[in-house]
C-alpha cells in the first residue's frame, strides 16, 4: 500500500528546518505590518519606561535601587507582551477565520504553527529588551553591570514561555471577539497588581503570588543582585508548572476543534 509514495522527492531535514524558519519569518513580518499589534507591543514598553522610569524619576531624590527596579519592572512588562498578544489574539482570530483548518490540511511540519509564533514572540521580546537596555543605560541611571544585564536578559527570555502559554490558553478558549479584552485584562493585572513597579500592601500584597509576573520579577531581581523574596526554585517551578498546565489545556482544545 505504501509503495505508491516510494517515488518522488523527499523532505530533507534541512527543508523541514527551513519550513519552521520561514513560518517564523512570515509570522513576524505580518505582525510588523499590523500596527494594531506592533505599536502597542514594541512602542508601549519603551514609552512607559521613559515616562515613568526616566522622566518622573524623582529628579535626583530617587530612593536607592529605584532606577534598577523601574528598569527590571518595565522589562518584565515588555517581554510578556509579544507572547501574550501574539498567541492570545491571533490564535483566537485564526481559529475563527478558518486559517487553522487550512494549515492542518497543508503538510506544515508538526508544531510549526506554534513554533512560528514562539520564535516571533522571542524576536519581538529581544527588540523590546534591546530598546529598554539602551534607554536604561543612557537615560535611566541603571547601575547594573554588563554581566548582570546579560543574566537579567537570560531570565527574561525564560519569561517569554509563560507569556506564550497564557496567550495560547486565551487564544484556544476565548471567542475571537473577546480574546483581545481577556488578554488586556490579564496583561494589566500582571503589570500593576504583581508589584513590578511599587511595593503592594494589604489584600493585593497577600495575593501577589497569583500573577506570573510576580515570580518572574523575583527571578529577575535575583539575576540583578537586587533584594528578593521567596525561593527562586519555587518561583521558577510555579512558572514552569503554570506553562505546562496552560499549554496542555490549550492543546486539547485546539486538537479537538481546530
Amino acid at each position: 500500500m505504501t509503495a505508491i509514495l516510494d517515488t518522488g522527492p523527499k523532505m530533507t531535514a534541512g527543508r523541514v528546518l527551513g519550513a519552521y524558519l520561514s513560518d517564523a519569518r512570515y509570522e513576524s513580518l505580518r505582525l510588523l505590518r499590523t500596527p494594531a499589534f506592533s505599536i502597542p507591543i514594541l512602542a508601549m514598553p519603551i514609552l512607559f519606561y521613559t515616562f515613568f522610569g526616566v522622566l518622573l524619576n524623582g529628579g535626583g531624590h530617587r530612593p536607592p535601587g529605584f532606577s534598577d527596579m523601574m528598569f527590571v519592572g518595565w522589562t518584565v512588562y515588555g517581554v510578556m507582551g509579544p507572547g501574550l498578544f501574539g498567541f492570545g489574539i491571533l490564535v483566537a482570530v485564526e481559529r475563527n477565520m478558518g486559517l487553522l483548518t487550512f494549515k492542518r490540511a497543508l503538510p506544515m511540519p508538526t508544531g510549526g504553527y506554534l513554533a512560528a509564533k514562539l520564535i516571533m514572540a522571542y524576536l519581538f521580546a529581544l527588540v523590546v529588551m534591546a530598546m529598554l537596555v539602551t534607554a536604561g543605560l543612557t537615560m535611566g541611571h541603571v547601575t547594573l553591570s554588563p554581566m548582570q544585564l546579560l543574566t537579567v536578559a537570560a531570565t527574561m527570555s525564560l519569561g517569554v514561555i509563560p507569556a506564550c502559554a497564557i496567550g495560547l490558553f486565551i487564544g484556544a478558549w476565548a471567542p475571537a471577539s473577546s480574546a483581545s479584552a481577556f488578554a488586556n485584562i490579564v496583561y494589566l493585572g500582571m503589570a500593576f497588581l504583581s508589584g513590578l513597579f511599587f511595593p503592594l500592601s494589604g489584600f493585593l500584597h497577600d495575593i501577589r503570588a497569583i500573577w506570573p509576573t510576580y515570580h518572574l520579577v523575583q527571578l529577575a531581581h535575583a539575576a540583578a543582585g537586587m533584594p528578593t523574596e521567596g525561593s527562586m526554585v519555587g518561583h521558577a517551578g510555579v512558572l514552569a508548572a503554570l506553562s505546562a498546565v496552560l499549554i496542555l489545556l490549550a492543546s486539547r482544545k485546539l486538537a479537538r476543534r481546530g
Partner: protein
Amino acid sequence: MADDGSHVARLAQDALARLSGVKKRYGATVALDGLDLEVRPGELLAVLGPNGAGKTTAIALMLGLQVPDAGQVTLFGRSPHDLTARRNVGVMMQEVALPDALTVRDLIGQTSAYYPAPLTPAETIALAGVEKIARRPYAKLSGGQKRQAQFALAICGRPRLLFLDEPTTGLDINARETMWACVRNLVAAGTSVVLTTHYIEEAEALADRVVVMAKGREVAQGTVGEMRALVARKRIDCATSLSLAKALAWPEVSAASLSAAGQLSITTADAEAVVRRLLAADPELKDLEVRRAGLSEAFAELTQEPAE
C-alpha cells in the same frame, strides 16, 4: 474469485485517495451515509451535488481534517494524518481567510516551504496567472482575486493530487478561463484533481469522470458524456386535462408529475415527440413551456428528492 481479489488489490494500490463505506454525522445531520469514493491516478474527478450533499465533508475526510464515524479513509495508501502523504497534496478550500498583511508572493513563499520540491514563487505566480496581484497584501484583494491567490497556494508544492473545493465561485469569466487552462495543463502533466462544483459546465469543461452526490451518498457516476446525456433532457410543463398515467405510458417520457393545480411536468430526451403527442391528445392544452432540464432536475431524478 482469485481474479476479483487481485483486481481489488490493484485498485486499492492505484487509488491516490479513497473513502470506503464512510459515515459521518454532525449532531443530528447525516453528512455522509456510507460513501465509497476513490481518486485514480491522472484523472480529474468532478464531484457534483447540491448544497449539503456532503462534497466538502468528503474532501475534509481525505485531508484528515475530519475523522469518520465509520469506514476507512486513505491518502496515498496511508492515513491522511501522515505528513508524508499530505506532502503530495495541494488544497484550495471553500472558506479560508489568510493573513491580511502578507502579500500573495509572501503567502506562496510560506506555503511552498512545506513541500519537498515546490515550484519557485515566480513559477507559481506565472502558472496561476497572478502576476498582477503578486505584490498586493491579501487584505487588498477582491473576492475573486483571493480565490486566485488560494489557487496559487494549492499548486505551489507541485502536488500529485490537487483538491479544489468550488474553486471558481466568485470569479469573472477571464479568471475562470485562466484557472481552467491551468488545471488542464496540470492534468496533462499527470496531476490528479478532485474538483467539487455546483456548475455542470465546469465539470463538462474539465472532468474525466463525474460523481454525483446527494444526501451523503453517491447517486450516479460516469463519464462527462454520460452525465451530459442526463442533463441534456428537456423539461416540459403545461396545463392539461390529460392523466398522469397516460403521459407516463408514452415511451419518450422518462419522468412525469402532476401538481395539485393540474400542471403536468414531463422530463424527456425527445421534447418534440412528446409535444406532438401532447397537442394531439389534448387540443385544449395551455401554458406550454419547454426548457432544457438543469442540473437540479438531473439531481431530482437521480435522488427522487427535489434538489436545492
